[in-house]
């Protein structure tokens, strides 16, 4: 069984609009999956089902063998979530306090919390800024802090919602490098984006969402020709007939 199993998942919002339409998708443990689609295609809605922030109207989501709807808290421990708006997810008044928020909620004792916070901040390269106020960080650093915040809770997978929005070139590279490192250390990654170009070179698989349905799934390079049909920009290099390289190169 896959780490994440999405079976015939549909979500209808309170106002009757359809958010997700019978999605079937499996994500293997350790896989790096990019979910692409235009605005309103259901990417964020899909992601929020992975840790029970939204619950299915129909179908089910199973994380590591257990239904998310039956036990959302377990799903939240298995899959950490990095939200699109990095500013709005900062809870603490210093970088270290913010990273400690999750482990504190899990009831660890102070020493364990300090250890987790230290190793999470080291993993994202923010150990030097532990006592700094989060709102003084750069865009890329804020996103890395958000990553540290979920890493400190020890998840197996991390879901990123539009991780590159509002980031400058340096910020995109920082976040991308972080993702690659997380993938290398064995984490399962699910990344939504409409900017396929920025991650394509590192992803194992690309899934295309269109109007709430998963229309295509496969190796990124194979799906490039179909992107524009679904309102997603093709990588520049592909248009020019070259190989799509890494943004980290």
């Amino acid at each position: 069984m896959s780490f994440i199993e999405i079976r015939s998942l549909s979500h209808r919002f309170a106002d009757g609009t359809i958010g997700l339409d019978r999605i079937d998708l499996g994500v293997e443990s350790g896989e790096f999956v990019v979910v692409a689609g235009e605005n309103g295609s259901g990417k964020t809605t899909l992601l929020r089902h992975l840790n029970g922030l939204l619950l299915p109207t129909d179908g089910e989501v199973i994380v590591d063998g257990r239904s998310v709807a039956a036990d959302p808290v377990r799903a939240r421990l298995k899959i950490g979530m990095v939200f699109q708006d990095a500013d709005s997810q900062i809870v603490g008044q210093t970088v270290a306090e913010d990273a400690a928020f999750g482990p504190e909620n899990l009831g660890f004792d102070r020493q364990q919390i300090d250890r987790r916070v230290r190793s999470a901040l080291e993993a994202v390269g923010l150990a030097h800024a532990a006592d700094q106020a989060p709102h003084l960080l750069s865009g890329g650093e804020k996103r890395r802090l958000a990553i540290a915040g979920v890493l400190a809770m020890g998840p197996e997978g991390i879901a990123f919602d539009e991780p590159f929005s509002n980031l400058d070139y340096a910020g995109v590279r920082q976040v991308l490098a972080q993702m690659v490192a997380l993938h290398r250390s064995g984490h399962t990654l699910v990344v939504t984006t409409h900017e396929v170009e920025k991650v394509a070179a590192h992803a194992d698989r690309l899934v295309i969402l269109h109007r709430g349905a998963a229309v295509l799934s496969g190796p990124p390079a194979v799906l490039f020709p179909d992107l524009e049909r679904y309102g997603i920009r093709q990588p520049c290099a592909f248009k020019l007939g070259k190989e799509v390289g890494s943004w980290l190169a």
Partner: protein
Amino acid sequence: MSAFEYRPGGSFLHGLDPRTKLAAAAVFALVGLAASLPVLAVSGILIVWALWRAGVGPRQWVRDLRIFWMMLLFLFAVRAVTGSGPALVQVGSLGVTAQGLADGGMICLRLSIVALAGIGVSAATRPSEIEAAVQALLRPVPFVPEKRVATILGLVVRFLPEVLREVRLTKEAQMARCIEQRKNPIARLYLFAVPLLRRIFVRADRLAMAMEARCYSDNRTGPVLSAGLTDTLCLLALGLLVMLSLL
């Protein structure tokens, strides 16, 4: 830098447990309202000394409490001309009396002590320490969920710079569209507040969701505070002060 912002340091005040400092501020509030002149004088000297050691000299507290001093001046002036007894100086129809001056001076001294003690807490205690102390002090109070109160306090401090930034952005956006042309004050308030609040509440929703995603819980690990010998001695001294002021 204002005296109300935390300034890092290792002074006597910095070293005290935040609970002790909050207790001290409360005791000095009582002293300020109830004590006699000698006790007030001793308290005043103690506070000024502790503030000075913590890096907050008279310059800072004169400047940072500007508005407060101005209000005290007003209070003093009003008291000076409303006292009873023979007038020392006559200003128009108002007579400045000796008793008025004494009353005014006393009230100002009392209020200054309370205010300066407040600065002592803000300047030498991190906001997170203050939250921790509040949580600890509220624990025995029934019907008050102290962990939630501490979380909300932390969020207030977190939100404040963000709110001020949004206010500035909203004002700029409206100036760019010539809001000054609108003369109706109600319309202006409405047009200012609705977009501002709408944006801020959307962000609050996102924060709530992010807290949920990180398993915000009631049995979360609290902060660690440790009081030492100095704290015990301070509390004893504070107890003495309370007795002296109530006598």
